[in-house]
């Protein structure tokens, strides 16, 4: 397993933990430093009578410590992993003591138990009744929504910016009532358009027609192929049961963890992890929904790889996936796939033509450099062709300071309007943006 120091630091919950973790990452502060195939553990003298026992699960990256800190991971866990990254030779190989095996086994048990839960008798009749009632509610809601959409295009979109704050709110609430949260979210998206921007007309029309397309597709659900039935149902807001998905056979591969980004939405942080399977050539997106002060279940570190089995959600060319079983963590190793922007654009074109609801596609590229002239930013490919990217600070400075104009391998999110760099790597160094 190889992590870099930056990657360990990225795991810290805040800047204070980074500092205290670094301070503690000297061998003299530790009474015991051991490693096995499964875990790292050590004892660190703190302010208490007994030394704190810190441990790190190496298979399925996780931390535990006996200290009273509520931060996660705490400074001891961070320091332990930092020490290991800097100088693994300092750790003596040993068999896990009881306090380590206990925790590791409990973690493994938990995973097993999760798959055992269910087996509850299902009241099929009540379930059928409920889904029938929901179908009726959605059908009514969709009728209302289509009337609203038609009114908008009949009267013209010219006056929309004046009521940009609330014109979408009533139909959005109506869709919640109709138990179609997916449509409600699409309607909320109308409020996020920049109505002072140059191209709001196109953005608005684009979003409106896609909402219309989703409603119309749902009305014709019975005549669609199975993949599309699932795709359309997810768009409307039907959730797929995690347990059922995890019972399906997964895709085992060495998944390279490409990037991790966070989106805040209604008090919940959504963590987006992009993965790429080297053998299958598939991309996967693993989402984690984290409420305040909650510890994420899964810890995927960008710039490493995991040998794991993923289950994809049902749909058309699905990207979203769930982690089924994680076998081991390994080093990151891929190079970009596309050499120039034309190939990347072709991938975008394929994605959009196969699924009209696709906004952007993930793209891995070789030899892309970042260039800034005045206030405009560009990405330059190996052929010297440039694509303008939306500039925003402090990302631009960060990108410039890393790349210095030199070409890097890059992971990008490509949409018709912009290419968004998410991470880059060269010379065995990995940077997340």
């Amino acid at each position, binding site marked *: 397993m190889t992590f870099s120091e930056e990657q360990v630091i990225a795991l810290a919950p805040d800047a204070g933990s980074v500092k205290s973790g670094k301070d503690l990452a000297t061998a003299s502060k530790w009474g015991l430093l051991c490693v096995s195939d499964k875990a790292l553990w050590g004892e660190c003298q703190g302010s208490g009578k007994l030394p704190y026992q810190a441990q790190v699960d190496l298979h399925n990256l996780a931390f535990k410590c006996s200290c009273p800190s509520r931060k996660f991971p705490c400074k001891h866990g961070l320091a332990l992993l930092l020490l290991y990254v*800097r100088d693994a030779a300092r750790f003596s190989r040993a068999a896990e003591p009881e306090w380590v095996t206990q925790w590791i086994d409990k973690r493994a048990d938990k995973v097993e138990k999760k798959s055992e839960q269910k087996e509850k008798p299902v009241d099929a009749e009540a379930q059928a009744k409920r889904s029938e009632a929901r179908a009726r509610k959605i059908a009514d809601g969709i009728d209302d929504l*289509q009337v609203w*959409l*038609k*009114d908008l*295009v*009949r*009267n*013209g*979109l*010219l006056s929309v910016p004046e009521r940009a704050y609330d014109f979408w709110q009533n139909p959005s609430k109506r869709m919640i009532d109709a138990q179609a949260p997916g449509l409600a979210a699409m309607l909320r998206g109308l409020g996020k358009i920049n109505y002072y921007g140059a191209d709001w*007309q*196109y953005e608005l*029309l*684009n979003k*409106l*027609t*896609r909402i*219309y*397309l989703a409603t*119309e597709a749902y009305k014709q659900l019975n005549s669609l192929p199975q993949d599309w039935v699932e795709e359309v149902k997810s768009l409307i807001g039907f959730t797929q049961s995690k347990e059922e998905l995890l019972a399906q056979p997964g895709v085992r591969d060495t998944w390279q963890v490409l990037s991790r980004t966070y989106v805040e939405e209604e008090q919940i942080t959504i963590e987006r992890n992009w993965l790429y399977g080297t053998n299958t050539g598939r991309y996967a997106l693993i989402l984690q929904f984290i409420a305040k002060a909650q510890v994420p279940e899964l810890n995927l570190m960008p710039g490493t790889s995991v040998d794991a089995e993923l289950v994809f959600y049902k749909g058309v060319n699905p990207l979203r996936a769930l982690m089924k079983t994680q076998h081991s963590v390994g080093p990151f190793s891929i190079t970009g796939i596309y050499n120039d*922007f034309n190939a990347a*654009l072709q991938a975008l*074109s394929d994605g*959009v*033509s196969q699924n*009209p609801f696709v906004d952007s596609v993930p793209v891995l590229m070789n030899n892309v*450099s970042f*260039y800034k*002239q005045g206030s405009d930013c*560009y990405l*330059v490919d190996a052929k*010297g*062709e*440039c*694509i*303008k990217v939306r500039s925003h600070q402090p990302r631009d400075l960060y990108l410039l300071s890393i790349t*210095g*104009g*030199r070409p890097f391998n890059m992971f990008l999110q490509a949409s*018709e*309007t*912009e*290419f968004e760099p998410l991470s880059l790597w060269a010379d065995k160094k990995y940077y997340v943006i």
Partner: protein
Amino acid sequence: MQLKETLVNTALIGTGKKPLPANELPDALQASAAMIAESKHDEETKFLSTTAAALNYYRAGVQPVKFSLPANAAPDEKKNLLPGSRFNSAE
């Protein structure tokens, strides 16, 4: 680019005042546009259906504007580090 403008302009003014000029659509879209036009739906439904197809066609073929710029890389940074610094061995 003209396709996008045609659709956007019609939507801005409203189909109540100016219906979509279907004959201005590209050839590739004519067949589906004709099929939608023949249906018995109202004008707004026809507009939304045609636009859904046309915008997907547009999005699948859109090319961001490309330029050519001289790209000059910055020279490598040379740090003078203290002897024994752990950065020396790492590089």
